[in-house]
């Protein structure tokens, strides 16, 4: 037993103090008929040495992106993570602590939450941010539920098809059990005709799933005219360059925060970001750190507006969320702090320039066409005239290139299309190699 302390002698002492004859007796209340009469059928225990060997064997059967050049995106990106993020989040005082229920001994975590909330507002131009949700997808659905609660319009929401397909799937799942209709439109040009006074909110993504930047100010105008709310899912890395959602008329911003200092992790844990206008703060789901003073007038932080949350409001809570993504909000806070305004501008610019270079070089090849001429940020779609994406990807893998994501998975009409992401990590040599291999 690797982590417990009690020696047999101590165990005896404890049983005596309890007044029980054996440890088994402590389980007497459980009827024999439901007690397991055999050991659990799981593999026998491994010491640290054996565990490490076993896990190395499993790890070896994965090809990770340090062995490949990654042009995969679609919501999860290979961005550079400064060493300080890992160093600081490896501190036991951060990762083995829990929710700050006792503020006097959690000022570290509470101050981090407050700083994170502020940094997100600075990045997005919004008034208020929560302390994190699970991921970008569940943040999107929570935002739509929040909008319904605010507008008291529970019959209809609109989602644009260029929002991440998995986010739309999550919305479909959540909304299946409540009476609200989910209307999907193919792109933002279809919004005006779909909007009416029964619409609670519209969900758009910018840059969208295909990498294209949407005209959010115009969309915002249309949405507000119908008395609905605009929910926009953004790429936090793009906010070093692109117009901030708070300045573009967005009411609730959500995002996947993985790009802000978290590795790929095969999809999780990630970071759900949500920020909104001041007037909606009491409907915001998730934890909130608030500033106050103590009895001596000293500035300090506490969890606040807890009456929004499930542990108090129970079935009337805005959301059922309890545990959030505290450690990953810390990662984002450290990342944003060490990057600063110039770092964020530089990263965004590098992504923009490199993606455009890659797109131009690839579409120069006979084989590939762009699919539209909308402006894009760090991802773009190319159409394969030979309609053999699978073959392309296989060939690229032989050269240790992960060339892109096949869109046919989610959009049948785009089965001959590839979504390519280019971050600041991709060098001109890597891009040129991609072009060469795909072109050959």
């Amino acid at each position, binding site marked *: 037993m690797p982590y417990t302390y009690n020696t047999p002698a101590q165990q005896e002492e404890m049983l005596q103090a309890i007044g029980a004859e054996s440890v088994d007796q402590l389980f007497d209340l459980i009827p024999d008929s439901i007690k397991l009469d055999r050991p659990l059928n799981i593999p026998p225990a491994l010491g640290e040495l054996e565990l490490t060997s076993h896990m190395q064997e499993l790890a070896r059967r994965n090809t990770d992106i340090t062995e490949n050049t990654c042009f995969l995106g679609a919501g999860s990106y290979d961005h550079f993570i400064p060493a300080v993020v890992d160093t600081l989040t490896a501190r036991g005082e951060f990762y083995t602590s829990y929710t700050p229920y006792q503020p006097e001994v959690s000022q570290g975590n509470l101050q981090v939450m407050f700083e994170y909330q502020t940094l997100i507002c600075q990045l997005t131009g919004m008034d208020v941010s929560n302390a994190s949700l699970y991921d970008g997808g569940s943040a999107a659905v929570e935002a739509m539920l929040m909008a319904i609660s605010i507008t008291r319009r529970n019959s209809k929401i609109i989602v644009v098809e260029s929002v991440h397909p998995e986010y739309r799937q999550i919305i479909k799942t959540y909304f299946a059990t409540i009476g609200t209709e989910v209307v999907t439109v193919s792109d933002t040009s279809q919004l005006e005709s779909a909007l009416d006074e029964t619409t609670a909110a519209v969900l758009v993504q910018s840059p969208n799933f295909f990498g294209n930047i949407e005209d959010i100010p115009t969309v915002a105008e249309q949405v507000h005219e119908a008395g609905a709310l605009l929910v926009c899912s953004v790429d936090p890395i793009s906010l070093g360059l692109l117009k901030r959602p708070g300045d573009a008329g967005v009411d609730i911003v959500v995002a996947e925060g993985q790009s802000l200092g978290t590795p790929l992790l095969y999809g999780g844990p990630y970071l759900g970001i949500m920020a909104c206008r001041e007037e909606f703060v*009491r409907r915001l789901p998730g934890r909130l750190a608030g500033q106050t003073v103590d009895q001596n007038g000293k500035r300090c932080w506490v969890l606040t507006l*807890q*009456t929004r949350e499930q542990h*108090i*409001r129970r079935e*009337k809570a805005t959301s059922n969320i309890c545990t959030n993504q505290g450690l990953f909000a810390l990662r984002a806070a450290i990342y944003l702090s060490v990057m600063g305004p110039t770092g964020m501008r530089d990263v965004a610019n590098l992504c923009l320039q490199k993606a455009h270079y890659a797109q131009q070089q690839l579409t120069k090849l006979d084989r590939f066409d762009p699919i539209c001429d909308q402006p894009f940020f760090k991802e773009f779609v190319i159409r394969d005239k030979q309609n053999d994406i699978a073959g392309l990807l296989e060939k690229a893998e032989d050269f240790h290139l992960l060339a892109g994501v096949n869109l046919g998975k989610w959009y049948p009409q785009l089965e001959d299309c590839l979504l390519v992401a280019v971050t600041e990590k991709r060098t001109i040599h890597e891009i040129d190699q991609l072009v060469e291999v795909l072109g050959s």
Partner: protein
Amino acid sequence: MNTEELLYCDTHEWVFVSEEDGQKIATVGISAFAVEQLTDLVFMELPSVGTAVTAGDEFGEVESVKAVSPLYSPVTGQVTMVNEGLPDNLDILNTDPYNAGWIMKVAVSEDLPKNLLDHAAYQRQCGEAS
């Protein structure tokens, strides 16, 4: 307001009915006992003017740091006025819950419910609870 002339819900709201131009108007608030039980109030949600309310149903909420308490309407009718300044000055409920601490006025459309308590009956109920 003379507390002895008010009627009370067993959920601690008080009501005073007057007449204006032939229309019964109910002024609604919460009792000093309720305010004491709730301890530090931090937020109150008022209904909008024009909302229909039903006797016995929730019309709003009041929050302390660690609890949320629904407010139940003593009467059926339509909200004609709300005390807009109250949510920003919740301490008024501690000092003057029966006058400056009024919450809403309702144009009454139905007879008052039979189960409203008079002052003596309400005092007895609070006494039992303590």
